[in-house]
């Protein structure tokens, strides 16, 4: 009986000492955390995607509380979050430009011949290290899915050897942009009405030989765009999304069908 009692007392005493110590420590050594940062953190979606340019939601919240960051940087949170954040910080609401990832390549299995049979690791990064990858077009999508592997929203699917983004699932964090060894993916505004489906900057004949869907830089779109929204530089068309009104003139004119009418409204 006695031994049980001593054991009980000793453990209870140790527990008591520990709890008193911790309570005292919590009371006297309390560090005031920034209340604002805490509030802000609760408004953020917690995806830790890094689209804001900070390492995660926590560090973005801290930067906001310290006044080092703008309130409209959270892409997944969108306008809702920006509104809440601006309210907490007491600044004017700035609109978030909702963005979506887009793969600027249409070199599918049919259109783009392969220059070799690649049998290595199933990764775009590794494949592109070997003579730029198996594609004849050195700009084209390799279709191994490095983008899909890093996508936190699982928005990618591989079809006919190239990557496609499900614009409804994409939250615009840009993880895929840095994962693509061919730099094919960019974040385009969700409001974009027309997109270029190619990234090839080679001269027309070479580009054409390597892929039947490549932009040959013929400038038809540039000359015929009523809004002057398209410029061809380095044999590749580029669209000014602010100017483009989606009239579709270029889509019909393009001989290579590498301009496409887009609808990214989620």
């Amino acid at each position, binding site marked *: 009986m006695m031994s049980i009692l*001593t*054991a009980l007392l*000793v453990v209870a005493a140790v527990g008591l000492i520990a709890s008193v*110590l*911790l309570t005292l420590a919590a009371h006297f*050594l309390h560090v005031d955390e920034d209340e604002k940062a805490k509030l802000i953190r609760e408004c953020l979606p917690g995806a830790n995607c890094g689209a804001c340019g900070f390492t995660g939601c926590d560090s973005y919240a801290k930067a906001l509380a310290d006044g080092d960051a703008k309130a409209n940087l959270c892409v997944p949170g969108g306008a809702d979050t920006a509104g809440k954040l601006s309210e907490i910080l007491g600044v004017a609401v700035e609109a978030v430009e909702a963005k979506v990832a887009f793969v600027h390549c249409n070199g599918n299995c049919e259109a783009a011949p392969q220059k070799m049979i690649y049998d290595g690791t*199933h990764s775009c990064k590794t494949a592109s290290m070997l003579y730029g990858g198996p594609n004849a077009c050195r700009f084209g999508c390799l279709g191994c899915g490095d983008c899909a592997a890093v996508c936190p929203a699982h928005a990618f699917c591989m079809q006919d050897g190239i990557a496609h983004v499900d614009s409804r699932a994409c939250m615009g964090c840009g993880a895929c942009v840095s994962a693509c060894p061919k730099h094919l993916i960019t974040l385009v505004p969700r409001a974009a009405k027309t997109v270029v489906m190619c990234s090839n900057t080679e001269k027309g004949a070479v580009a054409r030989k390597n892929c039947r869907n490549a932009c040959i830089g013929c400038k038809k779109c540039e000359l015929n765009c009523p809004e002057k929204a398209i410029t061809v530089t380095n044999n590749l068309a580029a669209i000014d999304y602010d100017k483009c009104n989606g009239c579709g003139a270029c889509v019909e004119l393009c001989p290579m069908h590498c301009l496409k009418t887009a609808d990214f409204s989620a």
Partner: protein
Amino acid sequence: MDTFKNLIVILMSSVLVNNYVLSRFLGICPFLGVSKKLGQATGMGVSVIFVMLIATLVTWPIQHYVLDPMNLGYMQTIVFILVIAALVQFVEIVLKKFMPALHKSLGVYLPLITTNCAVLGVTINNITDGYNFVESIVSSLGCGLGFLLAMVLFAGVRSRLDESDVPECFKGLPVTLIAASFVSLAFFGFAGVVDNLFA
């Protein structure tokens, strides 16, 4: 001189021969969980050294001045868990207050180690091996260093694994465990080292 030799032997044997992760298979959870990146692995390793040292500093006196005189040796595990958990929490609070920089680098890992079996294992083994206070401290330091070594080595192995073409059925945890077993096998090669260290 003999004491010094003895301490060196204890240190070397706890780093290499009785490596807590690779020979005794304690602390596998952080070993597999935090060894993906070298930076994190080092952070975790340093935190473990730190926690092992302070845990031994406290538990050794408790065993010898509280539990043993009262014939309560069998309460060791419970009391140690209690003490270590409270201690780590306390240290975290203190670090947060007085050394924010250190808290920032170790802070994430400290709660993870609070009830880590490697830490508990070190403190209990120090008692069972009959070490005196100084020997216990050296042994804890060695175990912590051994943990750090295992973490750093395995972080290297894993970064190579990431880039290799692993068969579908082995992807992820299976291949990590197999790699861990190879590293562990390699460490068994150290078995005879310590006996012949001063021979």
